Structures are given as C-alpha cells and as structure tokens.
C-alpha cells in the first residue's frame, strides 16, 4: 500500500501533527522547510518510477475516486486529460519547493537512505519499505505512517494497493490436484498470518483478520478500515508504453519542466495510439 512515512521525532520537535487534509500537509512541509533541520520530503526524480508508482498512483485516487476513475480510463469514458487526473498532477507540482537540493539527480536509494538517516522528515513510500527501514533506522528514531491527505476535510480517502504477486495453476499442469492443495493453503488464515508477519510490509489479500506484530505495518493495515481501496491506475490498461509514459510525465511535473495539462496530454497520446 502507498502512503507517507514520517519521522515522529522530527514532528514532535516541531509540534507537528499528522496532516489529514492537503492544506495541512502543505503547512507541515512549510514548517519543516522553515525550520531547516530536516529536508521536508525525501523524494527525487532521477529514477522516475517512484514519481508515478508511489506518488501519482498513491495520491491521485483521492482525485479520481479510486476505482471509478481507473475503470473509466479502461472503458474509454475518462481520459488522462480530464480535470481530475490533471488536478492530481497539479497537486504534485506544489511539492517542488519542499524536495531536497538537486532532487532531480536524487535516486530511489538516496531517498530511502536520507529518510533512514533522519535527514528527511517525510518519505512518500510503499509499505514494502517497512522491513528495510526497521533494519536501517535501528531504533534511532521513531517513525510512523499516514495515508494520503484528502482534498477537503470529510472527503472519502482512497488507498492504492501495489498488487505485486499472484499465483495460479497452469492449464497444462502435470499435478493439478497437488497444486490445488497448495493454492488452498495460500488462501488460508495460517498463510495469511505467516506471510503478513514474516514479510513485513506485505499483506495477504485474503479476508482473514491477522494480528500484525510490527507496529508500523499494523498502522498501515488499519488504513483499510478508514479508506476505500483501489489499485495503481495503470493496472489493466493495455496500451503499450503507458507505464513509462506515466513515469516520465509524473517526474517531469515534479521537476517543473512540464505543466500538469501537458502531462495529461502526453500520457493520453500513448493511450490513444494503441
């Protein structure tokens, strides 16, 4: 799942609370920037993929109402040039002043390291980071997670899932019965518990309720009860090259070299060409 990780010690020292709306979020960023000790956002655009997969796909569903927007793109009723998609990019463009110096050449691992060293206060990231952060931070500071702030107080919030792994049986399998037993076990509560607790930051998609041991992972899992679920907006879109178009467009908007409207047109051109 995509959201933000934050340095609890940094927030405490500046008397900041977890932002629930976008206005609050920008205020938090501004307060961190004014103080100067922490770089507000641990995000770079060199590798480009986080600009889309974590940031645009993670924050955007609040704009296009999650599944409604995503399904609209697939059946053709919506386009990336529509207001809700362009507005999501406009929101991203506001983050430019709060990213580190020279962020255009800051890589994904640079961002991870800056957060775990305690030099950046907020890290837009996916829950898969939790295991790595636990190891890298080694308890030097406390960190937590919050979900993407909504536009206005009271709006429905949306969480984008980063669906990564699925399993099935090959039609021509030689041992389908044994494979089926294995797959049934994967759907069981025992597996859900094992997977969610041993592979911290990854969650089983089954409906069993699991007791999560890691506090940050548990915090993230609790978002499901507050927010609607969706998946990354490019999922199931068949247009060739749509993903790298979204990478480029989102990174360019964060760099300030492309306007949100142009970004929408860029991505829609790839949609339309296929």
């Amino acid at each position, binding site marked *: 799942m995509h959201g933000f990780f934050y340095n609890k010690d940094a927030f405490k020292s500046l008397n900041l609370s977890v932002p629930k709306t976008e206005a609050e979020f920008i205020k938090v960023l501004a307060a961190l920037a004014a103080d100067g000790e922490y770089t507000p956002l641990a995000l770079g*655009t*060199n590798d480009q993929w986080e600009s889309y997969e974590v940031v645009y796909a993670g924050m955007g569903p609040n704009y296009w109402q999650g599944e409604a927007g995503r399904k609209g793109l697939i059946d053709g009723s919506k386009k990336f040039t529509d207001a809700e998609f362009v507005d999501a990019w406009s929101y991203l463009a506001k983050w430019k002043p709060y990213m580190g110096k020279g962020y255009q*050449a*800051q890589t994904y691992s640079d961002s991870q390291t*800056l957060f775990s060293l305690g030099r950046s206060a907020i890290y837009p990231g996916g829950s898969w980071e939790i295991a790595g952060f636990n190891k890298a931070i080694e308890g030097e500071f406390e960190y937590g997670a919050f979900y993407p702030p909504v536009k206005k107080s009271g709006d429905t919030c949306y969480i984008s899932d980063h669906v990564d792994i699925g399993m099935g049986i090959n039609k021509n399998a030689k041992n389908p019965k044994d494979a089926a037993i294995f797959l049934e076990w994967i759907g069981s509560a025992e597996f859900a518990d094992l997977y969610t607790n041993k592979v911290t930051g990854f969650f089983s998609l089954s409906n069993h309720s699991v007791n999560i041991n890691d506090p940050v992972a548990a915090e993230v899992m609790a978002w499901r009860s507050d927010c609607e679920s969706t998946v990354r907006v490019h999922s199931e879109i068949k247009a060739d090259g749509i993903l790298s178009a979204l*990478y480029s467009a989102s*990174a360019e908007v964060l760099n300030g070299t492309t306007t949100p409207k142009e970004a929408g047109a860029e991505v829609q051109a790839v949609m339309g060409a296929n």
Partner: protein
Amino acid sequence: MNKFPWHLVVFLAPAFIIYGVFSALPLADTLRLSIFTEDSFGVRSFLGWGNYEFVFQDALMSQAFWNALWVNCKFFFINMIIQNPIALLLAALLATGRIRGVAFYRTAIFLPTLLSVVIVGFVWKLMLSPVWGVGETLMAMVGLEDYFGPWLGMPESSLITVSLISVWQYIGLPMILIYAALIGIPDELLDAAYVDGSKPLRTFFAIQLPLIYPTLGLVTILTFVGNFNAFDLMYSVYSGAGGGPEQSVDVLGTFFYRTFFGFASQIGSTTMGATVASLMFLVICVGVGLYFYFVQRRLLRHQF
C-alpha cells in the same frame, strides 16, 4: 601437380569460425529477423517491410527513433569536438620528448579505458550526486559551488555530462594511437625542419599533422562506430535503458534494448528489436561508407 594448400585452411579457419559464429552469422540473422513478425506466443512469421514501415510511420515509434538518432549524433559531435582534439594535444605534448615521466602520464591517462564501464558509471554518478557526492565539495574548494547542479537529472545537461564521462574514460585510446603515429615520424624530418628555421608549432601543423592524417582518420572512424554503438555507459549511469530525463540520453543502443527486451509495461519484441538493430547497422554503414568514399581514398600514406 600442386597439393591443395591445407595449411591456409588450418591457419585461417579459427579466425573465420569465431568471426563467423559470433559476428557475421548473428548480423545476417538480425537482418533476416527484421523482416519477420512475432505474435504473443513468440511464433514468427514472414512479414516483409512492415516492421520498417512501423518504425517510420507510427507516431510514437518514429518520434523515439529520430530522437535516439539525434541524441546519438549529438553524442558523437561532442566526442569529436572534445575527446579527439584533447587526445591530439596530449599525444603531441607527450611526443615532444621533453616531458619527464612520459611513461607515467601515458599509463595514467590510458588506465580509465581499462575500467569496467559499470564502475565508471557508478563512481561518476556518486561523485556527481547532489546528496552525497564530492563534486559539489570539490567545486566549492575553487569557489564554484554556485555552478554545481543535479546535472545528470536535468535534460539540458544530462547528455553533455554523460558525454564528458565517456570522454574521460576513453580519451586514452585515441591518445595512444596518435602518440604511436607521432613517434613513428623519423627524427630526420623534424631535424631538417629545425635546421630550416621552423618553429615547433609550425613544424607540428605543417609536417607532423599531415603525416598522421591516416591515424586521425582511423580515430574518427573508431569514434564514430563506438559512439553509435554506445549503450553500456548510459545503462549504468541511469540504472537501466530508460534513456535519462525526457529521453535526453536515449541513444540508439538504449532504444534498441527497450524495443527488444521490453521496458516497464512495454512488451519486448525480438523482430521489432531486430529492425532497430538493422537500422543501427545501416546508419553506421552509411557513415563509414561516406568516410571511405570522401576521405580515406584521398589520404596519402607515407612509408618511412
């Protein structure tokens, strides 16, 4: 009756076989693949010129191809303007015979060409990193810290930065070639010029330079072929074949890689990749052909 010269076959066979299997055959097969198409199961069928039509007529593909070609031309241009003149200068300085420790300089300048391109890419990327790199610190030492920037991340500066990294790595090669040619010029010629009252600079431009034109031609061709085949430095600096910010470092090699193997959600196609590779071959052939026709035939070779 003369016996069949078996010894010729025995001595030529290894070279022929290795060259044939690893160079000639794959090239021929690539050209063959480019006129085929493959379906989603990988089954290939004859197509004709359809792939080439697609590369030139599809809006996105042709834009990407022409961009890659243009970036490659710029890359070659930067190398020709910077790498080869500096190599010539260094070789000329080393060949004067009046520098102490020539062997040390020769070795030191040549050493980077032996480094793995992955190491070169990673180390330079780290040095230029605005987060932890020494680049900014070094510039601050000479008061230039205001001019430092995230050059690798910005489309205006990314290509020239990667080109300069390439120049840094490979300048030893043309330098050594030109140096070898310069020291091959007999001293009698240079002594005669000295006796006739020619100053060193005039001797260089009037006598030494014309005598090494064939080597300069060789260096140009090697630079051309090497630059149009460039791939590994861009791949290692940008950790993938993405082509850098806004495709500003996307050369034909990285464009080919993405087409053949796929990238992000773009599915790879061996036949379309073969088409791009064939076009690369064509571009290089045309360049080398033009060079041979217009330049090489007019070069005078001097035997000493």
